[in-house]
């Protein structure tokens, strides 16, 4: 039981990271109906940016106060990753509107290969570790059960919650969010009533990148290490989360992320010899099963194909 609760907390931490990445997938899919295959690698890139900015702050500017450094890392990471994703959209996806059906996906696969190899060439193939932070542990003892939570898990969940709220406010309460939702419903109609569709799509990519950058910083904080190939698996799992929650649905992405995080950590608790190694198979199977039997996910709208 104690172990279960412990894994529950670990799962929620992992799930918040997946949820943040999943929003990027789901928003882009919602607005232009494209699977942004490179999003996982954008996340990986943002984790590298976080590592470099962090090292710059602590080693070159000698900032010893970690929360301040983390704040600067988050802001710098969000800005710089947004510039990356904006550029990617501009170069690799925008010219393809109106091209044949699979063109954007193929272009995104190319972009994904490019990004991971680019980071490998620019930063070397080795893992990049940073010193662990927020190591203190809170012990909670309640009714005979004891659970320990690391400070960094609290930080991760708190930052995720705050940013999700800010993001929800942005999408629900601002003009920008309204334009975004309008484009999602009907791009042509939105253009007719004066919404700048190209700009809105760009902003969607920027928002997705900013949230992926938060996920990247949190990933580095949690695991303390990142390598150039770390974009693929979290990317696919976050996409699974988006699909499970119902692609196009924002609360669905967060819900799916938490579920995938929980399933992954709880799967590792299965005591049978040899089963825990298949945690990736579990995630991939969920992806396949959801897409085959329940393509609209848990919270998504069923998709109607118009001729």
């Amino acid at each position: 039981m104690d172990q279960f609760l412990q894994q529950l907390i670990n799962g929620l931490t992992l799930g918040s990271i997946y949820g943040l990445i999943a929003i990027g997938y789901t928003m882009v899919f919602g607005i232009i109906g494209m699977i942004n295959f490179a999003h996982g690698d954008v996340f990986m890139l943002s984790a590298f940016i976080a590592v470099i900015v962090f090292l710059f702050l602590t080693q070159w500017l000698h900032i010893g106060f970690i929360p301040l450094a983390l704040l600067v890392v988050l802001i710098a990471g969000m800005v710089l990753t947004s510039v990356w994703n904006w550029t990617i959209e501009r170069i690799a996806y925008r010219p393809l509107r109106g091209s044949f059906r699979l063109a954007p996906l193929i272009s995104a696969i190319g972009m994904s290969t490019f990004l991971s190899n680019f980071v490998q060439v620019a930063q070397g193939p080795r893992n990049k570790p940073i010193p662990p932070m927020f190591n203190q542990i809170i012990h909670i003892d309640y009714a005979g059960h004891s659970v320990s939570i690391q400070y960094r898990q609290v930080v991760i969940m708190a930052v995720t919650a705050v940013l999700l709220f800010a993001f929800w406010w942005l999408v629900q309460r601002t003009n920008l969010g309204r334009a975004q939702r309008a484009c999602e419903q009907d791009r042509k109609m939105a253009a007719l009533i004066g919404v700048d569709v190209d700009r809105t799509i760009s902003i969607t990519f920027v928002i997705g990148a900013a949230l992926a950058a938060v996920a990247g910083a949190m990933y580095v904080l949690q695991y303390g290490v990142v390598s150039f190939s770390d974009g693929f698996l979290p990317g696919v799992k976050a996409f699974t989360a988006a699909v499970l929650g119902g692609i196009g649905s924002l609360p669905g992405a967060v819900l799916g992320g938490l579920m995938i995080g929980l399933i992954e950590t709880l799967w590792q608790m299965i005591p049978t010899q040899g089963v825990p190694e298949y945690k990736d198979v579990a995630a991939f199977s969920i992806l396949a099963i959801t897409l085959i039997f329940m393509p609209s996910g848990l919270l998504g709208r069923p998709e109607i194909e118009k001729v």
Partner: protein
Amino acid sequence: MDASADSKGGAYVFKEAMIAALITLALCTPIIMFRTEADQNTSKLELIFRLTPVLVFMALAFAGRLVVLALRMRPARVKAVPSVAPPSGIRAFFTYVIGPLGLLFLFAYPVIVVWWLGPSGALKWMDSYGIQILIYVMLGWGLNIVVGLAGLLDLGYVAFYAVGAYAYTLLATGFGLSFWICLPIAGVLAALWGMILGFPVLRLRGDYLAIVTLAFGEIIRTILINWTAFSGGTAGISSIPKITFFGLVFADRENSFDEYFGMDYSPIHGKLFLYYVILGLALITNLVTLRLRRLPIGRAWEALREDEIACRSLGINTTTTKLTAFALGAFFAGLAGSFFAVRQGFVSPESFTFNESATILAIVVLGGMGSQIGVALAAVALIGGFEMLRELGWLKTFMVDYFGMTNFDPAQYRGLLFGLAMVVMMVVRPRGFVSTRSPSIFLTRRTAVSGDLVKEGHG
């Protein structure tokens, strides 16, 4: 903004180029400007500042934007309407001349290489160029059936390649079966897997199908990694029996091919044989594809690629059409896989990553989906080109001398160029190098297809 570029003049162009350079600066700021390097003693990461590459990239972006804007200022050419006539001019050259010439060259290639470089000098050119490229040509042609003809984006193609490789490996090491018996078995097994995995995903729309095939590919790879008793895990399986020529092995010992034919042992004999085997397999793939294209099933594939809903409304059974494409593509991947295993003598899950799928997909996409010649040329250009990257010693010395990049290795740029090529191709020429889709029937003379034939009562 773009349309009115010509009316704005130099200041506008300069401003645009400056913006491009500044964005590049922002892109390069953390990831290129600082290199993280682990300290020798403490293994703590340290930052190394480097400015030259950032400035180079900024200059490139500036110049690139200028060129793009200059190109936009030219009067736009009117695009020619694609015609459905027999190809002429440069297209006829590609269709009718390159094919036979290329075929001739492929058969003559080993002879040329051996004659030119001698038996030992030719080894590298046979192995890492000839055989390697032909494996990818075959995989490209196999995937072309699925992606190019049927229009189903299969991102897990390498799984069937793995099925073929492991089928041969396990049958040969476990039951001592020879390559020639295992080859068709491997193909059929892969086709079976193609059907098993294909069946549930066929209802899905294009990009969902792509993702599910990707998931299946990764599941198969993860199982190969973790099911150690079955597949040897990450360590893989080594000492796979080599290929035989009617029971004669290619080795320096008794009862070998060389001894039987009274020749001195030379490793080139085995390579030559492997070369012609994979050439034969690849040509079978090509032939089958070309013939099937003219059959109803091939036309159904291409119709499916163009419009699935229209297909269904015309009474084409989309399930069987898709399944045959999937199974046939998987079959050829299985053949290629077992050839891969017999050539390497070693298999491990490492060879069947998603990157491999992406490479094969890149070959098909760059070559022009649906074009056999294009796919072959793309395989030669990509695989041969990247093999050559390993040998660019002069580029390495140049980069070390002028940019101080001591750890520069051209081979590292393989994947980077791959990815970039795919993006650029999609943007510039989405139909690939050889973008002509040769129709399977031509209207060579006028026929009456006018109103009087389709009047009421005439169907």
